[in-house]
């Protein structure tokens, strides 16, 4: 019995350690962003509280930067329009793959699945986007990835789980394919659709690479790319540099806070999402 208690104690300590290493980096950045810039760049310990004198100067600088505001706007545009299109296109594809009858179903299925095994690669994809005239447009961040094939398979699995009898009886009542998809199957797959919104939405919020290769005009840059370009600049040990360090901290906070705020509300869907993804297509 004693051994058991010792294990439980160690296990609890381990879990506290996990919580600490998952949360502390973010906590550290938040605390550092309010600290005295002159002291923070030489401070080397654990930060429990901002170093005095407290300052919100870094945030003033960050929000005075027009790129941050345009970054938020661009990201929101891509997030809303992009996720909406992602959802519609993925639903259309997933629905077709659940049908049993169409002659070309197998051919289209193969065409979709094959892309999970082989792709043209980065450079041909880039040249393709240029050829299609999407270069330097926010649509370059939306259209080339409008369907994620893994997501399509996940959604297909969910759609296939809708009782066939419901679909059949709707068919007999003369429902069209769009009606069956949008009135019957989609409402019964709400949980998986919510997971899709999270996956695509988080993807849009966090993405920077596409923007870095497809956009030239900095007014079009999404938030993450703006943040990346700031973080990229190497710091030296001058006063200006310690100031720049503060701004980096504040930038991280500003770009991550929205995710942290909505995180608790979405987290109940996470487990479900992974589970859906794990089931064979």
């Amino acid at each position, binding site marked *: 019995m004693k051994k058991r208690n010792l294990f439980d104690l160690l296990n609890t300590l*381990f879990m506290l350690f996990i919580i600490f*290493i998952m949360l502390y980096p973010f906590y550290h950045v938040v605390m550092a962003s309010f600290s005295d810039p002159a002291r923070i760049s030489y401070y080397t310990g654990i930060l429990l509280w901002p170093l005095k004198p407290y300052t919100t100067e870094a945030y003033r600088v960050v929000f005075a930067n027009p790129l941050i505001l345009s970054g938020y706007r661009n990201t929101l545009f891509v997030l809303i329009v992009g996720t909406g299109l992602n959802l519609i296109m993925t639903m259309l594809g997933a629905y077709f793959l659940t049908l049993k009858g169409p002659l070309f179903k197998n051919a289209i299925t193969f065409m979709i699945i094959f892309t*999970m095994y082989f792709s043209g690669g980065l450079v041909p994809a880039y*040249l*393709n986007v240029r050829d299609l005239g999407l270069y330097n447009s926010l649509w370059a961040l939306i259209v080339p990835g409008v369907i994620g094939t893994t997501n399509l398979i996940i959604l297909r699995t969910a759609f296939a789980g809708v009782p066939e009898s419901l679909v059949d009886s709707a068919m007999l009542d003369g429902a069209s394919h769009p009606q069956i*998809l949008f009135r019957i199957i989609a409402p019964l797959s709400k949980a998986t659709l919510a997971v899709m919104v999270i996956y695509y939405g988080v993807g849009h919020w966090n993405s920077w*690479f596409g923007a870095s290769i497809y956009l030239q005009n900095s007014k079009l840059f999404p938030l993450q790319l703006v943040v990346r370009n700031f973080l990229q600049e190497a710091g030296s040990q001058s006063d200006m540099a310690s100031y720049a360090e503060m701004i*980096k901290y504040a930038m991280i906070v500003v770009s991550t806070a929205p995710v942290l705020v909505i995180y608790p509300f979405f987290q109940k869907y996470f487990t479900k999402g992974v589970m859906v993804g794990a089931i064979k297509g």
Partner: protein
Amino acid sequence: MKKKSGSLGNVLKKDMKRYWQAYLMVLPVVVFYLLFSYKPMYGILIAFKDYSPAAGVWGSPWVGRHGMQNFIDFFGSYYFRRILKNTVVLSLSSLVFGFPAPIILALLLNEVKNERFKRVTQTISYLPHFISLVVICGMIKMFVANTGIITQFLGLFGFQPTNLLGKSQYFPAIYVLSNIWAGMGWDSILYLSALSGIDQDLYESARIDGAGRWQQTIHVTLPGISATIIIMLLMRLGSLMNVGYEKIILLYNEGIYETADVISTFVYRYGLLNGQWGYSVAVGLFNSVINFIIILFFNRLSRKLADVSLW
């Protein structure tokens, strides 16, 4: 038999009549895949060409005598060995050290008796999965700089503080450990749900047979999730040569290419930054073909062993 062509036409007509709405719905999807997946595949021809955007893929001349010059150049270059080695090293060490981490976390979480504490820990452990790579890599860079908290912590053990990302020998460790940190919680979800699916009676009878906690873990828990472990392992193995560029681009610098530059980042630099189209597409194609073979192989294996496959 005589009416074969006629009946084929009839079958098509009937199919279209019955499913025209469905085909109309899937049309944008098909167009998307043609334009953004299959058209770039055609672009692979660039690997065999001396490509110029003005002449286009077809119009550009073949490179060298047989169109293989880009491959000959690549296989003969110093970089071939380096990026191949780095890709394998980073991928294998991520697998060896990273693969067990979520399993261990799940097993230990499973032993936590307080449901609420367990749930909170779990939720917190997913958090890094939702944070952007830009931010994660930005934090890594700050924490491993010479005054960074991780460097300073190592200093407690007599380590000479330095910018860890400035030294090539530390890159693999930074890459792998940060991957584990960011992915461990999220990846454990799958194992936890497999754990919750284990028949509780098995534990009961093990206890009656006098099995302690550790023995229960060995004889009941591990066999109970072994199928999940095998499936996940095979899936990981399928992407063995597929080391992504985003994280590495955010972390590396010219000084540590020796250990940090992988095939995908090499393609990115030569293709998108230097504009060496043909050469970079050739390198990318080399990688895609290897990936294709590996994933096909492990998918077959997984279908055989566990009756599960990507498709």
